[in-house]
């Protein structure tokens, strides 16, 4: 199992989840993607969208101004 990281704090909807999907498509099933994102829209939508596509949300943690969500690829 590999851990991958992605920073989408500079992205805006819908590119936030587009960037996340691009990485999720490249990594292996069971790998973990740690996404750093801003509060508000990205924090609301990215975990929800990832869950809707069958991935598992392992954790969501606040990290200063931003948040880190860990997603296990389906």
């Amino acid at each position, binding site marked *: 199992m590999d851990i991958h990281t992605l920073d989408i704090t500079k992205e805006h909807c*819908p590119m936030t989840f587009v*960037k996340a999907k691009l990485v999720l*498509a*490249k990594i292996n099933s069971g790998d973990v993607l740690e996404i750093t994102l801003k509060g508000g829209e990205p924090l609301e939508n990215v975990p929800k*969208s990832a869950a809707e*596509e069958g991935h598992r949300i392992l954790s969501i943690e606040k990290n200063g101004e931003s948040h880190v969500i860990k997603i296990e690829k389906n």
Partner: protein
Amino acid sequence: MRDYTEDQLERYSRHILLKDVGVEGQEKLLDGKVLIIGAGGLGSPAALYLAAAGVGMIGIVDGDRVDLSNLQRQITHFTKDVGVWKADSASEKMRAINPEITVHPYNQYLFASNIREIIKAYDFVIDGTDNFATKFLINDACVFEGIPFSHGGILRFDGQTMTVNPGESACYRCVFNAPPPPNLVPTCSQAGVLGAIAGMLGTIQATEALKFLTGAGNMLYNKLLTFDALKMDFRTVNLRKNENCPICGSHPVITELVDSDPAVCDL
């Protein structure tokens, strides 16, 4: 997996966001090859949407030039294009929408002698023609080459479409057998068509091509979708492969392509 540029990610973002398309589906579109036969009412919207979707290679065939009377429904042609080859005019618009794709205009009509050579370079064919002779020719050529295609036809306020997976689902001849006698086909002076229904039907055909390439959803195989725009009534009739079909039945009598007289009515 290909490396998407930032521009590509943004251009195709609304596809990538779809669960049933995603990064993988968009990649299939970029690698996909679709031939549109007829740059008229049906082919126009199909060409624009397929180009916008990033279908990697799009061929468009038409042996006619743009006429002023086409502009009421053939939305890829503009007033400045009157007199220009339709396939060239459509190709110019496709390239303007999406410079990344490869577009092949064929400024010619299709006959028994050239159709197989042209269609075999493509994954999927859209029949946007206006006459029964060519519709049967496209069906037969696609059956022989094993290439799936979308049949479409419009007249007045009505449209019909079915998608054919040769050898697997009902073909156009399974349902309609042979072209109707020319005296039953409306002559040009009798035939009218509401422009926007060309968009309704051509866009359904484009959707079928995009579903075929991405693998999303269920194709319109073994189904004839018809609509009457006056009542805005859509119906789907279930079809099945016909054992007695002259081309894909158990004892086919059509074993080679032949040209028949077109009862042409420019729709």
